[in-house]
C-alpha cells in the first residue's frame, strides 16, 4: 500500500487576498491578519483530498497535527496517521522543513504540500529531489513548476500515482521572488532547486505518434548536439538549470545546478560564479558565449533565476553568442507564449529580443521568439 504524505502551509495565500504579494515572514502574516485575511489553504486542500476519496483507493495518509493537515483531512472523513512534532512552536518556514524531513524518514511514496513558491522552497530544502513531491497551489506566488494546475488536478495525479497508472516524473523548478524587493516594485527571483514531480502522461495515439522521449534522453541528445558545435577557444558561461547541466555532465565534469559554470576547452574552470568573477574570467578570452535554458513555467530566458547574467554583462553579448537549450515539452508548456526577457535594462532587453534557434534534440532545433 502506498503512503501519501501531506503538509499544508495553513497561512499560504493569505497575503495575496489583501494585496501583500505573498505571506513570507512573521510581520507580513501579522499585517495580513490585521487586514482581514483568512486562511484558505486547508479549504483548497480538501478539494484535492475529495478527488482521491471519490475513487475509494487504498492508501495510508501521513500528515501533521492541526492546521498543517490533520484538520482538513478529518473534515473530509479520512483518519490520518500523524508525524510527531512539537505543536507548541509557532508555524513557520522551519515547521514545513522539519515536517518534510520527517516524512522522508518515514518513507512516504509521494509528498503532497499545499502552499506557494515559499513553501516549495522549504520543501526542496528539506528533501531535494529524493522523493516524488507534488504542490497543491494554494499560495499567492505560483511561479515554480512544481504545482498541479489546480487543487483538484493534484488529486487526480495523486489518484493515478496510487494506481500506478500513466505516471511519469519530471524535474520541476522551484523559483521564488524576494518579497521585500517585490513590494518595492523590483522583480528579483532565484532558482532554488528542482523537485521530482509526477505528472500524467499525455494520452497519445501510439500508431501515429511514437513514444515520446524521456526528459533525460532529450537532455542528453541536446548536449550531444551542442557539444559538436563548441570550439576550444571560446569561454562558455553555462547558466542554471538541469538541461544546461546535462551539457556539463556530458563532458564528465562537475557542474552546479543553480549557478553559472564556466567551461572552456571541455574543462570547467569555475563553478557557481557571480557577476564579478565572470567579468574577471572572460577578460582574457577572445570569445564568450552563453548557454542557457528558459527558467520557470513562464519562459523567462533572462531576468529570472539567472541574475548572474547582469545587464552590464549582457550589454556586451549579441544574440549569436547565446545558445538556448530546451526540451520540446518545456516549449510546449508555454502554450505558444514567447520567451520573456526582463533584465531591468530596456536597451539590453530590446537588443536580445527576436528569434532564437533553440536546440531541442540532436540535430533538431525550433525557431522561437523572445520578447520583452
Amino acid at each position: 500500500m502506498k503512503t501519501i504524505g501531506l503538509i499544508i502551509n495553513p497561512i499560504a495565500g493569505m497575503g495575496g487576498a489583501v494585496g501583500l504579494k505573498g505571506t513570507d515572514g512573521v510581520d507580513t502574516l501579522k499585517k495580513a491578519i490585521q487586514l482581514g485575511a483568512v486562511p484558505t489553504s486547508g479549504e483548497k486542500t480538501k478539494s484535492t483530498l475529495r478527488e482521491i476519496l471519490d475513487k475509494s483507493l487504498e492508501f495510508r495518509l501521513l500528515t501533521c497535527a492541526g492546521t498543517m493537515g490533520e484538520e482538513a483531512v478529518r473534515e473530509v472523513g479520512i483518519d490520518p496517521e500523524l508525524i510527531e512534532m512539537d505543536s507548541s512552536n509557532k508555524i513557520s518556514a522551519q515547521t514545513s522543513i522539519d515536517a518534510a524531513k520527517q516524512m522522508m524518514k518515514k518513507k512516504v511514496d509521494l509528498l503532497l504540500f499545499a502552499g506557494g513558491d515559499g513553501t516549495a522552497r522549504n520543501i526542496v530544502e528539506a528533501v531535494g529531489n529524493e522523493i516524488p513531491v507534488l504542490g497543491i497551489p494554494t499560495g499567492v506566488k505560483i511561479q515554480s513548476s512544481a504545482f498541479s494546475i489546480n487543487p483538484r488536478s493534484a488529486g487526480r495525479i495523486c489518484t493515478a500515482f496510487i494506481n500506478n497508472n500513466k505516471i511519469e516524473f519530471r524535474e520541476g523548478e522551484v523559483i521564488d521572488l524576494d518579497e521585500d524587493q517585490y513590494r518595492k516594485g523590483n522583480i528579483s527571483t532565484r532558482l532554488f532547486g528542482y523537485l521530482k514531480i509526477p505528472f500524467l502522461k499525455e494520452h497519445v495515439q501510439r500508431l501515429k505518434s511514437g513514444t515520446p522521449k524521456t526528459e533525460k534522453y532529450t537532455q542528453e541528445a541536446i548536449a550531444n548536439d551542442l557539444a559538436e558545435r563548441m570550439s576550444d577557444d571560446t569561454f562558455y558561461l553555462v547558466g542554471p538549470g538541469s538541461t544546461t547541466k546535462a551539457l556539463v555532465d556530458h563532458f564528465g565534469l562537475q557542474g552546479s545546478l543553480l549557478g553559472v559554470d564556466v567551461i572552456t576547452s571541455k574543462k570547467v574552470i569555475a563553478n557557481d560564479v557571480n557577476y564579478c568573477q565572470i567579468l574577471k574570467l572572460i577578460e582574457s578570452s577572445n570569445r564568450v558565449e552563453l548557454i542557457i535554458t528558459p527558467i520557470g513555467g513562464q519562459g523567462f530566458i533572462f531576468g529570472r533565476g539567472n541574475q548572474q547574467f547582469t545587464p552590464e554583462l549582457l550589454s556586451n553579448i549579441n544574440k549569436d553568442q547565446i545558445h538556448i537549450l530546451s526540451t520540446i515539452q518545456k516549449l510546449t508548456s508555454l502554450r505558444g507564449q514567447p520567451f520573456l526577457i526582463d533584465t531591468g535594462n530596456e536597451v539590453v532587453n530590446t537588443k536580445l529580443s527576436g528569434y532564437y534557434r533553440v536546440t531541442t534534440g540532436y540535430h533538431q532545433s525550433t525557431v522561437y521568439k523572445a520578447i520583452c
Partner: protein
Amino acid sequence: MENKYNRLRNFHQAKWDEEVIFQLHNPGEKGIIVPEVEKEIQNEIGDGISEIPASMLRSEKPNLPEVGQMRVLKHFLRLSQQTLGADFNVDIGQGTCTVKYNPKINESFVRNPNESELHPMQDQSTCQGTLQILHEMGEFFKEISGMDRFSFQPSSGSHAILNMASIIRKFHEVNGEDGQRDEIITTIFSHPSDAAAAAVLGYKIITIHQEEDGLPSAEALRSVVSERTAGLFITNPEDTGIYNPNIIEFTKIVHDAGGLCGYDQANANGILGITRAKDAGFDMCFFNLHKTFSGPHGSGGPAAGVIGVTDRLKDFLAVPIVGKKEDGSFYLDYDLPNSIGKTRQFYGPIPVIVRAYAWIRSLGAEGLEEVANIAVLNNNYLLHKITKIRGAASPFPAGKHRIEQVRYTWDKMFKETGVGTYDVTLRLADFGFHMWSSHHPFIVPEPFTIEPTESYSKEELDEYIEALQRISDEAYSNPEIVKTAPHNSVIHKIDHSVSDDPKKWAISWRSYLKKHGN
C-alpha cells in the same frame, strides 16, 4: 435525457474469444491441398522443385500456422466484427487523415482480372491500358498542381517526403553544394513526417514555431535561412486547418537562400481546384491518393504518394515514369539523367492508382473543385457547432475561419471537470464513433482534430456533434460516466505502458513467444 439526444444510436461491439491465428495451428490441417503434378507433365518439365538452386531452397519449413480454409474465414470475419472501420462509423474524428468514402464501384476495376492478373515482368506491349492510366494520371496531376512531371513510385506520404528529400540532396550534389547544405526547415504544425523523413537522410531539422496568430512568420523563417539551407518542407493548410497566406513569401525566402521548396499536399482536400503548388512557388509536391483521392486507408497497407516536380527538377524524379510515343503507345522511361533511382519495386502501387483514377474520372475538373468547396463548408459548419459546446474551443487563434479541418481543444472542460480528450475518446466508442487527438507533442492542450471531408451529409455530422454535446453535458453533470467509459465496448481501458516497455512489446508472434513464453 435520452430524448434530448435522439440522433445517437445504440451500439454494442461484438466480442469473440478469438485466438491469434498462430494459436489455431493444428498440425496436418490444410487450407488448400495442391494436386500432384501429372506424370505426363513431370516427364516433360521435371518435378519443378529440383530446378531451384540448392542455395535458394529452404532447409526448414516456414513456421506458418496450419489451419483449414473455413476456420481461416471465420477467424478473420470475427476479427472484423471487433473493429470500427470507416464504413461503419461517421469517421470524421481522424483529422489530417482525410478519411472519406471509398466508392465501392472502384473495387470492380481493381479486382477485374485485367488488373489483378497483371504480372510486373510481362512485356510492356501487353499492359498498355495500365500504362495509359499512369500516364493520364500524370496529366491530371499536372493540371491539379501546376507541376511539370510526376512519378508514381512512392508508396506512402512519408515515402514521398523521402523522395523529395532525396531529390533535394541530388540537386545540391549536382550543383556541388551537397556537403554545405545540410538543413531542412519545416513548421511545427506541418505534418511531423516532413521532419522525420528528412531526418532519415541525415538532414538537420529546423522547426518554426507558430506565432500568436497560429501561423509561422516569414521573419522567423528569414532568421534561419542561410547557405546551409537545403530546403523547406511545409504543409498548407497546416494541421490546424489554417492556411498560411504568406506562402509565396516563404518560398521566395528559401529560393533566395539557394534552397528548394517541397509542398506536403498529402491532404489537399480543402484546396483542390482552388490553389496550385506551382503558383505558390514550390519546386515539388506530393499527394496521397489514399487521402484526398478516395483510396481506402490500408492501415499501413496499400497507399500512394504521387510526387511532382517543376521543369528544372524534371530529370531528378524516381524512375520509371511513363512516356508516350508519337504512335500513341506508352512505355516505361528509365532515362532520367539525374534520377534519384528506383525508390520502390516495379512501377508504383497500381491498385491504389486505379481507384483514384476512377474517382477523378467520375468527378471531372468541376467535381474536384466541388469536393474542396463542400469539404470546407462541412468543416466550418462543424466549427460553428462544436465551438458552441461547453468546454470545447478552437485555439491558435480562437474564432478564425479554417479550411478543411480544425484542431480543437477540451482544455477548458479538462480544467473544470477533469474530463479530457482521452476520456472523450473512450466515451465516443459507446456511440460507435472514433476521435483522434493530435500529433505529438500536444501544442494544443487536450486536442482533438476533426475533418469532415465532403463525404458526410449534414444528418451524419449532426449525429457526431450530438455525441460530443452529450459527452460535454455528462462531463459537467456526472463526469464519472465519461471517466469510466467505454461502457458498450468489449475492451475497456488499455494499458499503453506495455508499448513503452521493450521487455514486453512484441511486433511478431515469434518475438511474442520469446518475450512472454508459450
